[in-house]
């Protein structure tokens, strides 16, 4: 279990990083903490000829407010968020999710941007940030574009990232005081990959909701309307339609009834947690 040989670059500036990416004519992998990529390299599941390690870029570790939103640099670690070293616009949701990611050793090095770029369906950020309505800032030498997390994630380990492009930041809208958030996941052991996961955001003031079911073999299921609650979010806990959730999971390819039952039960717990 030793990685195949690869060229390793650790640029000192964004412009160097983008130049390296633009120059790459073969496959290139971006390392932003290496907590998933490292094992994949060692198992030779990926054998990129070049790796660009962006974890040292100061620009990507910065956090700034943009009006009501928070822009989090891609290389902010889970531990930075867990420990409150960055501001929070989510009334504690962000640090709480960070605390539940894998193990502390992973959180010390793993980054929020790296997690999204890796796009593991069982990753906490993929599900949570989709529910919170976050967007991803993508930068290349040609310029910058923003994509909603729900558009960025295109499948298991698949993203909309183009060659030469880099996740540089996550833009997170602030959570209104009235918003209700619930989150639940099922893991065989604390810190292991989740086999069921759900995030629930209910916004009573705008009468909107967003439900995300993660940890399935494909893109998370995102329910942007109130269909799961019979069309209205008032009394959402009581009106949760388990059968509809079950059907959506079936459509997403979860054929095992026991697995679906666990997913739906986890979703029910996230909903219960969001309920007043």
């Amino acid at each position, binding site marked *: *279990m*030793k*990685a*195949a*040989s690869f060229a390793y670059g650790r640029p000192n500036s964004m412009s160097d990083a983008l130049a390296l990416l633009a120059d790459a004519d073969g496959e290139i992998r971006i390392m932003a903490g290496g907590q998933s990529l490292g*094992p994949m390299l060692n*198992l*030779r599941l990926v054998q990129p000829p070049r790796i660009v390690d962006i974890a040292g870029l100061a620009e990507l570790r910065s956090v700034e407010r943009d009006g009501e939103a928070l822009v989090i640099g891609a290389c902010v670690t889970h531990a930075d968020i867990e420990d409150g070293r960055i501001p929070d616009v989510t009334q504690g949701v962000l640090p709480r999710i960070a605390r539940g990611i894998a193990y502390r050793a992973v959180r010390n090095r793993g980054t929020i941007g790296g997690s999204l770029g890796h796009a593991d369906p069982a990753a906490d950020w993929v599900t949570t940030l989709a529910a919170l309505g976050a967007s991803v800032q993508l930068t290349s030498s040609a310029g910058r574009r923003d994509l909603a997390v729900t558009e960025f994630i295109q499948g298991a380990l698949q993203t909309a990232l183009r060659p030469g492009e880099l996740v540089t930041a996550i833009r997170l809208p602030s959570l209104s005081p009235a918003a209700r958030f619930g989150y639940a996941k*099922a893991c*065989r*052991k*604390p*810190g*292991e*990959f989740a*086999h*069921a996961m759900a995030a629930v955001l209910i916004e009573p003031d705008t009468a909107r909701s967003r439900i995300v079911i993660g940890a399935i073999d494909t893109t998370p299921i995102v329910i942007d309307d109130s269909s799961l609650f019979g069309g209205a979010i008032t009394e959402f806990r009581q009106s949760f339609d388990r059968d509809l959730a079950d059907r959506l999971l079936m459509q997403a390819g979860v054929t*095992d*009834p*026991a*697995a679906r*039952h*666990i997913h739906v*039960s*986890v979703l*029910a717990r996230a909903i219960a947690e969001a309920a007043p």
Partner: protein
Amino acid sequence: MTDAAPTASDARAPRGVGARLLRKEDDRFLRGRGQYVADIRLPGLKDVAFVRSPVAHARIKAIHIPAAFRDVVFTADDLAGIKPIRAVSGLPGFKISEQPVLAVGKVRHVGELVAMCVAGSRAEAEDIAAAVELELEPLPAVHDMRLARAAGSVLVHEHWGDNVFLETNFEVDISAALDAPIKVTREISTARQCMAPLEGRGVIATFDHRLDQLTLYTGSQMPHIVRNGLSDCLGIEQGRIRIIAPDIGGGFGHKGILLPEEVCLSWLAMHKGWTVRWLEDRREHLSASANCREHAYDITVYADRDGRLRGIDCVAIVDSGAYSSYPFSACLEAAQIASILPGPYRMPAYRCRTYSVATNKCPILPYRGVARTGVCFALELLLDAVAVEAGLEPGEVRLRNLVQPQDMPFDNITNKHFDSGDYPGALQRALVAIDVPAVRARQQRGEPDGRLIGTGVSIYCEQAAHGTSVYAGWGIPMVPGHEQATARLTPDGGLELRVGVHSHGQGLETTLAQVACEILGVDPDKIRVVLGDTAMTPYSTGTWGSRSMVMAGGAVGTACAQLVARATRIGAKLLQLSPEAVVWREGRACGPNGSVSLAEIAHTWYRRPQDLPADVDPAGLEVTSGYKPVRDSGTFSYAAHAVTVAVDPDLGEVELLDYVIVEDGGVLVNPMIVDGQILGGLAQGIGTALYEEMPFDEAAQPLATTLADYLLPGPTEVPAPRLFHMETPSPYTMFGVKGIGEGGAIAPPAAIANAVNDALRPLGAELMQSPLSPRRIVAAVLAAKQASAT
């Protein structure tokens, strides 16, 4: 620091048998100074990576080695004269498998060695391995042991005509049980597992031209047995082989076999003159080597209305994998099932058929608790089913059937000879400690979080240190005889003990010193225990079968007793007394008016022989002696485990709320170390119960090839158990000790499954398969709901 844990320097505390002495070896382990195979650096060391079969079953059409690597890649064609590994059982009907060290003609499991690649580093060796191209003609794979027995199945070894290594039958008049009013029948299975010691396997081979000797460093529990096997495969005399097993980071049986890799590296060292190393990585460990435990039972238990057992009828299958591993063979696991299934329970009728079945999986290896974990799971789950039928508490059913202490020693229905013990006493203590009535009351109340509470018990017995008479019957390549130890006084009065067993976590450097201290009176701090080197230690079959404390402890005790006799005679000379007038006390030869210390005796013998008279006993102060218990059919340690769980029926999650163990391992040489053994075993048992599983697909591809997929219990999964000891001495062993190395891992799966089933009983759900994963629990709950709805 509590009174129970004296420091190593507290000279006033008792230090012999029974002392909770801190472990001598922990100074180096806790400082990170242990030396494992991977820590050894030799000049010119090269690394080896293997080309392994990517498929479970195929004919090898060709192996293409790029021209640039011709000199560093070797296949079976290069290994002229090397014999395959053969582990033949003498049991009638056993079919022999020959395991080529590098595949010949066919590959029979994923991960089988096909070629070896040598380079300056492991990464470069893996690059070369990746460049070697295998041309394979795929064959259908035998992936399921039940299907493997079906007529027309693909054959793992074509010339056998079927896929059965061995079938055994045992019966005591089953017809006498058939009219019993209670009859419960279940299909039970335990998953294929991996052993997962912290340290994987590792081998370094080098050739010493001065000594004309191959030196093999290998993480082995049994260096002398490795030498036997290597000598056979390499075709060279044993004197030309030295096996050194340095510190071992956990064995559990995985390090109790001869590896094809050991033979391969030996060949490289001998024929290429290279010093070569192979370190097993975790993927190799999981997918190609350390498999164990896969059992399936069709079992019926017959009982009277009052829960008394009338008989057991069982067919058991063990998935032995593709080859018979050396030295324990492919059938030790299955063939033992028939003899150990009834355990400490009385019954008038019994029948058991067993099959050791070949499949396209890697060979099954003996894992801590060998066969017993599966047997305990099968029988103890069925006893709970009997309890339900009889309307009795599970504990009560067991109390009505266990052998009573006044019936000891006891020969059970399969003629297992139980040396001593109070099984009902242990169970009753466990039932009191777990407080069954309180659990029943809590079940009545219900839980605010909707979880379901359950409690379960299980009892196991562990035959340990079984010797010549038992193993001669199996007829495998290794039969333990008298265990030997050398006890050697140094000129300064220190003691060196040399034993052929090995310590891979058991703390033998401490416990064997405690035995010597007990007899000779030498402070354990002045005792060095030499293990793990064929050049330095007497022959031994090694450490397995919970035998080392009984056997090597007995041997050390015997050798030390002889040393006492010799030292007494010399001491008597120095005291100018007749030997009869001198007694040995606290490390001194004592006469009526004076005494002389062991150090003075040693000093005189070695350095001032002129002070001794001419007629002194010439035998000296170095003794090698052998030991066997009075009866070598084994010691029987045992325990009752009781656990209370909370089960989440929607998520299938199990929390262990309380865990009680009442164990009886006879006289304990070091109760602190025994506690550690039990805790470690419990963790492994919890893994078996709830987490560990190596699944295979229909192509017999292993599906859990990393530790992200193969789940091991960690600190958050292992509760602190409440541990109680009973000490019923064995009548047959020195000090009354019994082997206790494996027991902790045997009982937990059964106790936990019984507790989960107890919790799920109101829903009508029942699980008969380990591990009890969330998916299996939820599936059982859904199935029960569906059944009650229709």
